[in-house]
């Protein structure tokens, strides 16, 4: 019975049915299912499918936006429960387009997919200065910092931010992305990861979270 509800919940996210996703989440909570399990076995399963279909060109931005809205409606219900039960979210990711660059479609997609994967997002917006990134990291202590740029001229504004973080005590991991970015550039400026596209970025962020947990243990 519960299995079936989880499947329906995942499907409601895939279909972008925000009433259904909210109702099913309430229903599962009513049956005393732990919030964390509803997130993992229902909502995130749905967003995984959405991410994969988006990567494979089966669906496009509008469908992702609709699914993200269904995810968000369910998360509005689920979040207080997650916090009450003391369950940690998957992690906190801070995102921003670097100074001089106002392109944000890619960043917004990454944000949507990461929320779908259960991450808490702090989005600093576009044309964010190095100092703002540093101040906000100090204030919020994110696990991951995601930087994006679309221009060949502004991509060079990533390096000073990463250098500053490396010099600091912050334990934040960095991932970069955007049209002109490739692995070679990411390595050259010392970023921890490079997201080739929005769904690759989610996978890389998950991998970075794994690295962070290992570092804490050892």
């Amino acid at each position, binding site marked *: 019975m519960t299995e079936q509800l989880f499947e329906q919940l995942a499907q409601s996210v895939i279909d972008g049915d925000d009433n259904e996703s909210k109702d099913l989440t309430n229903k599962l909570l009513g049956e005393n299912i732990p919030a964390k399990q509803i997130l993992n076995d229902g909502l995130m399963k749905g967003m995984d499918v959405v991410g994969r279909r988006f990567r*494979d*060109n*089966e*669906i*496009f*931005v*509008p*469908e992702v*936006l*609709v699914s993200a809205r269904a995810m968000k409606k369910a998360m509005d219900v689920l979040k207080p429960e997650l916090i009450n039960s003391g369950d940690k979210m998957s992690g906190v990711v801070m995102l921003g387009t670097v*100074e*001089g*660059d*106002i392109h*944000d*479609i890619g960043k917004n997609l990454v944000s949507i997919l990461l929320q779908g994967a259960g991450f808490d997002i702090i989005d600093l917006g*576009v*044309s964010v200065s190095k100092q703002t990134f540093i101040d906000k990291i100090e204030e919020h202590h994110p696990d991951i910092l995601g930087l994006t740029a679309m*221009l*060949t*001229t*502004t*991509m*060079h*504004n990533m390096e000073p931010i990463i250098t500053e973080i490396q010099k600091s005590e912050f334990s934040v991991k960095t991932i970069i992305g955007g*049209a*002109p970015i*490739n692995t*070679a*550039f990411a390595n*050259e400026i010392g970023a921890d990861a490079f997201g080739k596209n929005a769904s690759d970025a989610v996978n890389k962020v998950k991998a970075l979270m794994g690295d962070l947990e290992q570092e804490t243990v050892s």
Partner: protein
Amino acid sequence: MTTNLLTLLERKVLLADGAMGTQLQNRGLSSGQCPEQLNLTQPETVQNVYSDYFSAGSDIIETNTFGGSESRLALHGMENSVHEINKRAAELAVEVRPPGKFVAGSVGPTGEVLHPLGTLSEEKANSMFSEQITALLEGGVDAIFIETMMALEEIEIAIRAAKDLTSLPVSATMTFEIGKAGPRTAWGVSPGEMITRLSDSGADILGANCGQGFDEMAKIVEILRDNTDMLLLAQANAGLPVMKDGKSTYIESPEEMEPKAQKILESGVNIIGGCCGTGPEHIKILRKLVDNL
């Protein structure tokens, strides 16, 4: 302007210009600055770029107004200067336009998502496009080039706003990427859908701009030409940027572009030009190719 652009296009292929942003950056625009602001603060710099493209052989140049809508200028706190910035950009171009050549008013996306997926209402989108296009027309442009669009609804609103304001030619181009499903915009629009919907909206010229380079553009133009007899425009990027000796550079040098551009011309495009990463050197080679047709 004595000859009508559309009449001329029935007879011959015309050459547009290359990128604006990189040309302004070569002349000192810093990466944090708003390119459209230069229309007011450094008019001679903008005019030099226009002149360079005309000298390189462009028949049509585009105004420095791609991000000239209220919502884009608002990112730089200049949402109250839409009229001034767009009108001036057009005036500057018209001043250096040689006889028989054309100035097209560039109109880019709002950067916002339309209701119900996003928060932008149709009325607001229409009023933003109308405000920008009105100013471009006052500045004396010969045509309106709506470009780099990804969502059908948004480009349709822009086309209708333009057609309501002028009888001048309106071009409408979208940005495609070739994936597993063939060419699609980020919003999932196929070339076929674009042709049907945009010709219904009243666009005089259709096409594709930006994207992944001249190679992909040749494939996209071929598909477009197979599906319509309408006038077609193609403005490709000089490939995607790569790192070379620690500096970012675009893959396709003017020489590398040449055979790919030839393919685009053979597919039956009516206006060819460049987008991101192209400059006057690319345009000079395209001039040679167009003249040899």
